[in-house]
């Protein structure tokens, strides 16, 4: 029988470059496959309903300024005005860190996105977007998990999420690695102490499902700890450590750079439910955007060469009311903006049919209408960027049939 400790050591040695390997085939895939030329997608989910109208600002609409006396972003050219994207839209100045990417043509937006069946429930709306379907009555798998399953045929591949609990978008039959958030978030666990783990290693040498789960968990945890150690050392080397979201963005990028079989990544960010005092380029929304924008810039920078093979999608469950409310905030709405970044993106463009903001153009007189099914955007990422066979699209997004073909890559 193989000595478990020795076995773990061997794994560690042979997979020195790998950071994450969780799941039944993770490390095996790496050692037998060695394929490097893979397309990658990272999804960033803004939970709470990010206010798309103050992110990609329709400064050409006078109604926008009528609806939002306290919180509207001034037109480009004015003091603290929007950063001009085109003759209709400008970017919230809190996102200045993204302008170089816009100039390079690797940033784009699709405005007025959403799903056909509107709901103003965070819970249902997030589920729609994570399941990839409005048929959410049961605990269902996430579309990224189904995508993983499609991508893994014939060659196995991996997905990684950052967070405390498995988000629905990643959950399902395929094993997915989950890493903790933050710079040094890993609580020490008794199992990290060799005098404890070596004993448990001897209890779980079997070939049964429980022993296998244990063995996979141990390999993953050792690699995770090594990763955290490396990261701590990197921070010691002089560079100022990034803050907030950028910490996680950097971690995600490093995993993907070091382990080419990690094709999918997921991050989520809370704090977008701005019912009260959301502010303009400062305040709650501005702070969040600044952190997100800077983190995205770090993510792109750290991805380095593989940025050309990466698509980054930023989405949120719904937009917010066109009008500000009585508390300097906005309430749950409908149509929203989706963000795309990628080395091979047809960028520097705001896509989507703009529905307009006049009273009669709003849904129910309150919300930006949805003119693009968010799945049209995902379908473009999946088929044109990830090279998923279009016939397999319905396996990832059940019940979806492409209404309009969007060409983003």
């Amino acid at each position, binding site marked *: 029988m193989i000595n478990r400790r020795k076995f773990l050591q061997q794994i560690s040695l042979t997979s020195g470059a790998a950071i994450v390997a969780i799941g039944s085939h993770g490390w095996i895939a790496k050692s037998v496959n060695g394929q490097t030329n893979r397309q990658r997608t990272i999804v960033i989910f803004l939970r709470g309903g990010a206010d798309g109208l103050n992110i990609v600002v329709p400064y050409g609409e006078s109604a926008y300024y009528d609806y939002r006396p306290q919180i509207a972003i001034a037109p480009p050219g004015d003091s603290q005005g929007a950063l001009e994207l085109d003759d209709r839209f400008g970017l919230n100045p809190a996102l200045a860190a993204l302008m170089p990417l816009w100039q390079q043509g690797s940033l784009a937006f699709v405005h007025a996105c959403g799903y056909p069946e509107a709901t103003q429930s965070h819970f249902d709306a997030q589920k729609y977007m994570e399941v990839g379907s409005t048929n959410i009555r049961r605990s269902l798998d996430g579309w990224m998990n189904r995508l993983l399953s499609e991508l893994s045929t014939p060659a196995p591949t991996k997905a990684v999420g950052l967070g405390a609990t498995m988000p629905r978008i990643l959950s399902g039959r395929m094993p997915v690695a989950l890493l903790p958030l933050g710079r040094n978030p890993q609580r020490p666990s008794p199992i990290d102490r060799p005098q404890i783990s070596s004993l448990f290693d001897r209890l779980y040498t079997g070939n*049964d499902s429980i022993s296998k789960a244990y063995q996979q968990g141990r390999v993953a945890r050792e690699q995770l700890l090594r990763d955290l150690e490396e990261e701590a050392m990197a921070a010691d080397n002089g560079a100022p450590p990034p803050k907030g979201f950028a910490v996680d963005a950097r971690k995600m990028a490093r995993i993907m750079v070091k382990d080419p079989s990690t094709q999918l990544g997921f991050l989520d960010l809370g704090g977008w439910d701005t019912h009260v005092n959301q502010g303009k380029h400062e305040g709650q929304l501005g702070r969040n955007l600044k952190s997100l924008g800077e983190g995205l810039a770090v993510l792109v920078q750290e991805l380095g060469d593989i940025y050309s093979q990466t698509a980054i999608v930023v989405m949120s469950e719904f937009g917010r009311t066109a009008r500000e409310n009585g508390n300097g905030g906005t309430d749950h709405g409908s149509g929203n903006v989706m963000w795309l970044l990628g080395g091979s993106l047809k960028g520097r463009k705001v896509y989507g049919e703009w529905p307009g903001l006049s009273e009669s153009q709003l849904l129910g007189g309150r919300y930006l209408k949805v003119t693009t099914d968010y799945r049209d955007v995902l379908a473009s990422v999946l088929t044109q960027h990830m090279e998923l066979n279009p016939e397999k699209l319905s396996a990832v997004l059940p019940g979806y049939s492409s209404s309009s073909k969007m060409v983003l890559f």
Partner: protein
Amino acid sequence: MANNSNASASKVLHVLNRLSFGPRPGDLENAKSMGIEAYIKSQISPNSIPESQSVQQQLSSLETLRLSPRELKAEFDRLRQTSQDPKVFSKAQNQWRKLVMDEAIQARFVRAMDSNRQLQEVMVDFWFNHFNVWMLKGLATLWTGSYEEQAIRPNALGKFRQLLGSVAKHPAMLFYLDNWLNTAPNSPGVRGQFNGLNENYARELMELHTLGVDGGYTQKDVVALAQILTGWGLERPKRRMAANAPPPPPPTDNNGFFFDPDRHDFSDKVFLGKTIKGSGIAEGEEVLDLLARHPSTARHISYKLAQYFVSDRPPAPLVAKLAKTFQEKDGDIKAILNTLFSSEEFLSPKNYNAKFKTPYQYVISMVRATDTEIPNFHQFNGFLTQMGMPVYGHREPDGYKNTEDAWLNPDALLRRIEFATRLGNRQFGKSKPLDVGQLSNTLGNNFSNRTREVVASSPPKMQLVLMLGSPEFMKR
């Protein structure tokens, strides 16, 4: 002779593992001396078992547990009136909510860990998940404890029809699955959010609670059932404020269930091929009878019981046997369990220790085996939250699963071991000094040779931890 007694020892352990949340010190010996048939018989009649002093004492300090949903809500409404300042009164209201929720969770843990009526508590776990409500949805925060107390526990070993009816009328379920809003369009009671049919409860009543998803109903039946259940709702003291309006009728029962004829659809309906004469609340009772006695319901419930008690993929002949008893005995849960516990499938040694514990079962069995005294339950529910299984915390109506598929994954297993290590080192609460030989006896010495060897060759203070974190203890 030795073999024979081993065989019967492992049978006793099996029965304790399935009919209880795992053995406490002394439980195996007691069941053995009592005889296994007598043990099963007593567990099936929980009222024949005296409850322990300690459980009674702990429960008696949980005062909100004895309040009805009406009383719980009345206090919540009273607190609203204690100040003009929203910050002040919502703080008071939230404290009330939190107290009510904490006490409900504590009562659940106390009973599961310590009650002598273990099968009743196991069945509460089963039925609560079958008729799941999510505690964090609005007013369900106040009512979930009462729901378990008044609708689930008293009927956990009773008649299925009675259980179904109690669930249907409890405010927690009416609220959670929205039937309190379910209103006949164009009825005189239409107002505000009471403005049309809501199919949510009607669908789950068939799909989850009774017939099962393949139980032979259509979308038309869903709509008909929703129409039949219009007006099944909650007492609303302020519902008619017009000066010369008659005073609101009293609630239909003490929990606050209220049938509102003004919002009911009085037309005749066709449901599952049968005409239901429009008559008011009696229509709902009629269809609950029909659903409770439907062969699909018998099959659906039998499958779930067999999966919970026997194996993740229960044998079809066993399910058929249980369904037969279900129908012959008119949904008498005791009779169905008797058939189950005396079946050869249940007693087959290949099913011994074959169910992977849910996080809830794992935690509770560990506390029981080590006889740990728990000073507060927050750490326990915190661990269960990390594991994805907080008490009363499943959002969707389908309840927590109890299969290995649902709960076994690498991260979860390491977390269990971490928890075992902390509990073994007494980081949670006092346990009586326990040596590893005692723990092994409590657990029927049911360990593989490998586990025995590893434990025996380990430092003494690790031996207990290893046993609690062993592959054998992950299963029941």
